[in-house]
């Protein structure tokens, strides 16, 4: 009996870990495309927040998860496009543009939320993505419930990891992306359109980041509140560094932080008599530690954060 209890606990923990890791993985995948092309988007937090908000509001109004997800993706792309325009066209400092977007979107989402729902004491709820157990596979002990009894977001993320890996490492497009982020002048001189490739990469960032935001509301929580991302966008940036801008690595890194988050929830409900803040700060501490351990392991694209100016003399 103890053993089954242990397995049940472990299953629940691993399953939670996986779910916590998914938004980080998705956002990390998006940011990887962006960073590989040379655009550092600190505004990932804003992308996720926008995705979370718009997916929630549309899902709430239409009661359709699918439409919600689409709105979330659109919200994410809208934010990443503003950042892209500022970074690629206006050639401004990318970090500052990202930060400004974070403030802007935080204000905007809170404002719009208040407009739509007013000051409510009960949080409005939206439908969440249902779990779809995969026949046969989901009955495998331990692995089954963890991997094959999840919602569509999780399955999609795994597919996305594979395709992102394939795209980056096995196609000519991946080489082009790499060239644009390493040495845009060389890419330009070889006839690649640096600006277009960078814009496309940032759209990918908006897509995945918006999806990650949707997962927060439509996959994990079923509601929205002010600043719901609470730093997940920044943590995703760390995941990108730790995962060395390689999709499988990003999943692994996200799982590490995801485990910390899952542990935090578990501890909070365990009834140990200490302030819950001790556990709440756990993922952030882990992130700092992980960032420290990743020192020197990851090489940044040479042109990361540097605007490309063509007729520079």
């Amino acid at each position: 009996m103890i053993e089954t209890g242990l397995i049940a606990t472990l299953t629940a923990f691993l399953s939670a870990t996986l779910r916590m890791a998914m938004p980080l993985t998705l956002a990390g995948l998006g940011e990887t495309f962006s960073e590989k092309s040379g655009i550092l988007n600190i505004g990932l937090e804003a992308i996720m927040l926008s995705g979370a908000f718009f997916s929630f509001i549309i899902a709430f109004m239409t009661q359709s998860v699918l439409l919600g997800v689409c709105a979330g993706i659109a919200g994410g792309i809208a934010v990443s496009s503003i950042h892209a325009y500022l970074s690629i066209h206006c050639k401004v400092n990318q970090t500052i543009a990202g930060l400004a977007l974070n403030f802007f979107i935080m204000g905007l989402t809170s404002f719009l939320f208040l407009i739509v729902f007013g000051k409510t004491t009960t949080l409005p709820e939206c439908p969440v993505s249902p779990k779809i157990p995969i026949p046969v596979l989901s009955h495998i002990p331990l692995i089954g419930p963890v991997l094959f009894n999840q919602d569509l977001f999780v399955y999609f993320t795994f597919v996305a990891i594979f395709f992102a890996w394939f795209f980056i490492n096995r196609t000519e497009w991946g080489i082009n992306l790499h060239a644009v982020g390493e040495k845009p002048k060389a890419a330009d001189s070889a006839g690649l359109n640096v600006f277009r490739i960078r814009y496309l990469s940032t759209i990918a960032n908006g897509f995945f980041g918006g999806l990650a935001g949707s997962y927060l509301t439509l996959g994990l929580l079923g509601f929205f509140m002010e600043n719901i991302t609470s730093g997940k966008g920044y943590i995703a940036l760390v995941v990108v560094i730790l995962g060395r801008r390689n999709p499988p690595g990003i999943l692994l890194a996200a799982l590490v932080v995801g485990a910390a988050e899952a542990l935090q929830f578990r501890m909070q409900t365990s009834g140990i008599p200490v302030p819950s803040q001790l556990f709440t700060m756990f993922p952030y501490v882990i992130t700092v530690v992980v960032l420290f351990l990743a020192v020197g392991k990851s090489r940044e694209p040479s042109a990361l954060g540097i605007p490309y100016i063509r007729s520079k003399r």
Partner: protein
Amino acid sequence: MERLKSALSYILIIVIILALSVVLILSVGSDVQESFVSFFRGIFGSLYGFSEVLVRATPLVMAGLGVSIGFKTGFINIGAEGQIYLGAIAVTTIAFLLPGLPSVFAILLGITAGFIAGGVWALIPGYLKARFGISEVINTIMFNYIAINILGILVRSVLKDPEYPLPMSPQLPDGYIFPMLMYPTRLHLGFLIAVIAMVLVYVLMWKSAPGYKLRVVGLNQRASLCSGIPVRKYIVLSSLLSGGLAGIAGVGEIAGIHNKLLEGFSPGFGYVAIIVALLGKNNPFGVMAAGLGIAALQVGSLSMQRQAGVPASISWIIMGSIVLLILSRRSLFTFSAESRKEKKV
């Protein structure tokens, strides 16, 4: 011609911001005129209202000065919020450890403790950046979340007031509390300290050799190194000063306003301070001006929320769009031959 264009572009930004405000106000169904009147009445309508602007500006200017030193040196300090928290924790802790001190010493000690605590909180990411090249942007943000949670733990445990059920500390000993400058308003010593800090930061950064080196490091690390400036040391120094000033901002909020440590005493002062530093172009006098301006915006927005029912989070949208517009000002509003060429590409 260039100057005219530049002035014109700023006017355009103001027009856009006004238009945006009108749209936002209309979207919540409030009356535009009433909103604007209540906005300005909130700021200029009474001595109290105006003093509230200065009260708001106090932490913004103080932390903004800190952030600007970091920015000038190339230490992108997003962690002012956490450093403010640490300053607040420090002054509270020291006050309960040494409660009987005479006022002058107590206040000086409180400020020093806040400076050190905030400074150390920034110095850790500063050192990690200087020594290992770890992104200070991410670390300072993480340190914000950690600091907020540390405060949460403290006001529920060792610093908790046993008399009250709420998570907050007891009242600070009298000696530590900042004197008021203008009874009955809430304006306190902190504002004076911010003004002094503004002058000191100016002298440090523009008149002294260490300040010169900090600026050089911020502009070109490689040239600094080749000229013999120990770059790492100066990055760490900059992080210490940067966080220290933000720490003092935290001291001011506790010793000048709340008189006890409690959760959520800072409604994002540290984040707004970043905007203040950006808008002030990292110049101390600019930071003061931007701090007053943003404080006025926030005070006005609050008044607008009370009287016209417009959510105060409108001020975040306005701040964000001002920064975004100013960032993109050059390419949005200049119509030189060069930028047209770029567009064609």
